[in-house]
């Protein structure tokens, strides 16, 4: 299953202040760990919302409203994401806990969200039950 670790923006990331070398090193080490464990799919940092565009649909059915950045409320914005593929929700949480504090001055926040994917459709309890059923049949065939 896939999870996205979303790193929230802070006043610093929105002001375009680059993270300290120490944090960059820690993040790099963390990403290497993810790669070595075979779980990293993608990771990117985003520019500040100053050059962002927001498209909204305040009136359904009519033209969208286009607003240029920057946007206020840093906590509602995203500064980057890391996409991982893991075996369980617990593993995703464990990896998220190992990520260094992304900003280090009290505003660091990581949000962990599960991505809809193929396995949600195939690893449901019904499929498992069916698997179990097939296995029993095969074993009986072997005995016969």
């Amino acid at each position, binding site marked *: 299953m896939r999870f996205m670790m979303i790193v929230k923006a802070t006043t610093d990331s929105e002001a375009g202040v680059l993270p300290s070398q120490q944090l960059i090193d820690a993040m790099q080490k963390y990403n290497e760990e993810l*790669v070595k464990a075979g779980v990293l799919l993608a990771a990117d940092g985003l520019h500040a919302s100053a050059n962002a565009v927001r498209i909204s649909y305040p009136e359904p059915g009519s033209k969208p409203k286009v607003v240029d950045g920057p946007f206020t409320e840093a906590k509602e914005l995203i500064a980057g994401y890391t996409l991982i593929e893991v075996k369980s929700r617990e593993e995703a949480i464990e990896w998220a806990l190992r990520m260094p504090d992304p900003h280090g001055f009290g505003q660091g926040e990581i949000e962990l969200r599960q991505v809809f994917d193929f*396995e949600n459709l195939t690893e449901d309890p019904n499929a498992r039950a069916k698997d179990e059923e097939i296995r029993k049949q095969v074993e009986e065939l072997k005995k016969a």
Partner: protein
Amino acid sequence: MRISETHRTIDTIWRMESAKLIAGLTRMVRDVGLAEDLAQDALVIALDRWPESGIPDKPGAWLMTTAKRKAIDLLRRNKLQDQKYVEIAREINTYTEDDVERNLDGEIGDDLLRLIFMTCHPVLSQDARVALTLRLLCGLTTDEIARSFLIAEPTVAQRIVRAKRTLNKEKVPFEVPVGKELEERLGTVLEVIYLMFNEGYSATSGQDWTRPVLCREALRLGRVLAEISPEEPEVHGLVALMELQSSRLRTRNNAQGEPVLLMDQNRAQWDHLLIRRGLAALERAQRLGRTLGPYGLQASISACHATAYTPEDTNWIRIAALYEALSRQMPSPIVELNRAVAISRAFGPAYGLQLVDALSSEPALKEYHLLPSVRGDFLEKLGRLEEAAAAFEQAAELTRNEKEQALLRKRAAACREKGERT
């Protein structure tokens, strides 16, 4: 944290750390079975203590230190009777806490690599290699392994016990082979991973076309291997092949669970992230500057499909050439059959049919359902519908996959219907 929650977390940490632990411990005690026991002893202690004390900051290092202490206890209890244990004890005592930390950090890749060369060692049967690798490197339980291969759990357990015993008896060293041997042994490692992947990708019997657990484990192991053995083009070739094939997992079946052929799949639904990763892995393989091996070539073929926006955009001439290169490196009637398909697409079904008919006397393909299935396809395109229907029916007789069988019967019926109308 509630106890059950802590236990789930410990279970997760075990899955994340067990391969590294077992690898590090095997280096110390030179016995993979003993290493696994020690790692599990450490887990039992964690299960007892962590619910109260909380989970330590570096759980991997904690487990390693605990397992190491267990190893020393065990050796003391055995009164160091055995010369082998005397040596081990001396070696373990030279490890300090710092070593454990460093070991988990820097050298762990080397230990993991040694471990995978051990679990895929040629003294073991293919089944044993796969089971032991899933168990020790992927951290799967015997039950999970049994479920993925549709076999009984005791069979898997026995297979694993015997494999560990064989490794011990044959004194298989914990090392990465060098020189010429490396190439051969790497071949067996990649074979185990690809076998695992294929078993997951296309179950040979039963109603399920795919078993995602095995695909996922194989892919993850391949990605790990690419990091710890980055100089080997075939490792990247295999990773590229698995990433690219996985990108089509969700389009291989329709809503009714029936298989959908590559050319009929909805390309918009392919996993473009995996395609990008596959192409990047292939580029890494190519950048190493050596001739692409069988995995690299198969990945290149898969990449031709992945980069074609529509089925009509497929570069069949390039695919035919790649199959020819592949058949030179790895001569096999199955590769020839695939080459026939590519040739048919590139130059017309009449040319493909010539190649397929040449293969019909091939004993290795006598029971292989894809031969009549491909032949049926060529015949259908050439308008020889009666013969095509017969070929599809023959193919349906030969396959054990129920869904594939249904698809082939449907094609045969369609040919007959079309034949009657004209």
